[in-house]
């Protein structure tokens, strides 16, 4: 130690002894050196050329250290994630970015909101494009979050140890829908006004149940929810401000926190789910470091970094490294590509298609038909049977059922394999056909023959019967029975879960399609938009 110090001190002594201008000269050369010195203080390791430096690049960077220094090859295959999680995240970032820009001009007041939308569309420089991108990204985020959930489900990524991350995901799903819904009111046009009036009354719909039970006088949860949401008994200024606060602050902050947790959990759960065969040596090679290059990984200096707490039956020494590549730059390329493709798609959509803006809100005349955004149209169809079951009961059952999925199905096999293999593919296929048949059958029946109230004998039936026995509750019950039968036949809870999830997914798709295309004025059935009565 002393040995190496000697030249150092003597050099400094020499410098100092050069004389008076020394300090000034040093200042000058420091000034010249500043860019490189600054860079060195910013990035505290060499060029990421060696595996070790690449690992350090990820490890020491605040923004990147949520990724592990090495990543399993299986995780960056397109077929593993389809890039959907990254696309969802990117859409959220785009939404925050364009949303803040829109806030510069938007005024959350019933008198000014609509006019400020017109300004943004027609006067504000690039306002129209920003609004279009914001709107399409909102739709895109809802679509991607659903598809991402389906991906996580079908690859059984909700299994131990990822149960809780699935629950976090469910919360993100609900919050994403809430984010979309609160944003829908802000333009204060006819579509917004009536969709939100309907939504707020869905919040009030537990009244249907409490009325039927005769307890509304003491326990009026429906009224409480509506008043809390609207700050009034109708959609007006109070509601607009409340939705605005939720939309620009509360929900984005909540979502950001949960996304951070979600990512942190992925890291702590040992990366993305992968099938057990993915850890076998590749190409039959017996080498333990099949793809790792000869240079030492960070294990040499950061041993503790790799001896993380891994779930599993055996110590994962070496197996850890097998079939992995450095995160920098490989994984960053993949993430970057998915993010850029998403952004590109949104910009193209924004340039080509304008976000809709109907006439200004008119509380006296409902839009006919007053259709919710597409992802709520399935619910709107259910709501047209019973407000409470369609708007609160069935969604609550679905969300709760999904959140409990990892705790009800704990079979360990086949995580990371799409549809859990052959049998799962068959169950999915059969369930898709079964689910489609049931939903289409119920819809056809309801359109053709109506329901209890339309029939002579049952026209005066009490509301409570219709609440619990309507086309919506009937097919939810049929789906439940079907999945129990599948559990019995296959002796596998995973197969039952696949059956149930597939039925709901197909049901959701068909209801959405049906309400979009075949429902017209007065929520009557039409074969196509061209048959709508003109008025």
């Amino acid at each position, binding site marked *: 130690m002393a040995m190496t110090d000697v030249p150092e001190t003597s050099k400094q002594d020499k410098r100092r002894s050069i004389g008076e201008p020394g300090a000034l000269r040093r200042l000058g050369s420091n000034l010249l050196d500043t860019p490189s010195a600054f860079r060195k203080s910013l990035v505290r390791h060499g060029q990421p050329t060696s595996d070790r430096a690449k690992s350090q690049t990820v490890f020491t960077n605040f923004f990147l250290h949520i990724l592990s220094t090495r990543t399993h090859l299986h995780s960056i295959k397109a077929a593993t994630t389809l890039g959907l999680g990254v696309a969802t995240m990117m859409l959220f970032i785009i939404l925050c970015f364009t949303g803040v820009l829109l806030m510069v001009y938007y005024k959350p007041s019933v008198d000014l909101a609509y006019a400020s939308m017109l300004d943004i569309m027609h006067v504000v420089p690039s306002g129209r494009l920003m609004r279009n991108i914001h709107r399409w990204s909102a739709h895109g985020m809802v679509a991607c979050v659903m598809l991402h959930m389906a991906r996580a489900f079908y690859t059984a990524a909700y299994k131990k140890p990822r149960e809780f991350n699935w629950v976090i995901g469910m919360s993100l799903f609900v919050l994403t829908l809430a984010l979309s819904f609160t944003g829908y009111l802000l333009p204060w046009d006819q579509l917004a006004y009536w969709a939100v009036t309907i939504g707020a009354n869905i919040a009030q719909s537990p009244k249907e149940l409490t009325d039927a039970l005769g307890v509304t006088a003491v326990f009026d949860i429906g009224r409480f929810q509506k008043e809390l949401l609207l*700050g009034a008994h109708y959609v007006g200024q109070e509601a607009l401000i409340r939705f605005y606060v939720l939309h620009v602050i509360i929900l984005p902050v909540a979502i950001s926190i949960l996304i951070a947790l979600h990512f942190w959990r992925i890291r702590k759960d040992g990366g993305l789910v992968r099938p057990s065969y993915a850890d076998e040596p590749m190409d039959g090679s017996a080498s333990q470091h099949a793809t790792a290059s000869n240079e030492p990984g960070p294990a040499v200096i950061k041993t503790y970094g790799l001896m993380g707490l891994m779930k599993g039956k055996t110590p994962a020494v070496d197996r850890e490294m097998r079939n992995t590549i450095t995160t920098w730059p490989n994984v960053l390329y993949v993430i970057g590509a998915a993010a850029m493709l998403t952004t590109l798609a949104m910009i193209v959509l924004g340039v080509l298609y304008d976000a809709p803006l109907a006439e200004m809100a008119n509380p006296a005349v409902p839009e006919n038909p007053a259709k919710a955004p597409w992802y709520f149209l399935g619910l709107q169809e259910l709501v047209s049977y019973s407000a409470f079951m369609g708007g609160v009961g069935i969604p609550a059952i679905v969300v709760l059922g999904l959140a409990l999925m990892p705790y009800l199905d704990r079979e360990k096999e086949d995580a990371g394999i799409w549809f859990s293999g052959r049998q799962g593919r068959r169950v999915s296929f059969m369930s898709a056909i079964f689910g489609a048949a049931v939903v289409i059958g119920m819809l056809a029946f309801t359109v053709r023959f109506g329901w209890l109230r339309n029939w002579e004998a049952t026209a005066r039936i009490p509301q409570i019967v219709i*609440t619990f026995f309507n086309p919506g509750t009937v097919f939810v019950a049929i789906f439940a029975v079907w999945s129990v039968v599948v559990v019995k036949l296959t002796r596998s809870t995973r197969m039952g879960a696949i059956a149930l999830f597939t039925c709901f997914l197909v049901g959701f798709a068909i209801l959405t399609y049906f309400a979009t295309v075949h429902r017209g004025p007065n929520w009557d059935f039409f074969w196509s938009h061209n048959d709508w009565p003109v008025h």
Partner: protein
Amino acid sequence: MTQTKSQLESSERFKPKASRRDFLGIAAAWSAIAAFVMAMLGAFRLPMPSVFPESNSQSKLGKPNRFLEGSATYFPKQNLWLSRSQEGFHAISSVCTHLGCIVERDGEGEFSCPCHGSKFDRAGNVAGGPAPKGLVWVDLSISPEGWLVADTLKETKQGTYLKV
């Protein structure tokens, strides 16, 4: 005498005595939680309005003699249909009891909702569709100056007519 591990663990020697320090720690934690919950309840009392913007829900509809017997008049601001018949005045709210759309009234005096197709008869009873109950009959009264006044937040029993 040898003891098994489980016997050892359940023996008195291994039971930690509840110490005063534990008690104080637990009590402190719980009181902190209780204080936090109470503070949050107080804070979240804020969004629950005690006065509603429309708390003055009474509005004058006009002098009674303006309306002919057998007539039905729509008041878009109050969302109600005012009818005068032999029995007297009655006002039916046009807000659908299903999810709050505004119902339309046809020539027969029957109501239908554009949103999910609920139907109501002349008296507001459900005649079809998803509405859980009939249209609301709005409370009517005569002010001291002789105006017909409707209170849109006050419901009255179906079949209550205001005689003038």
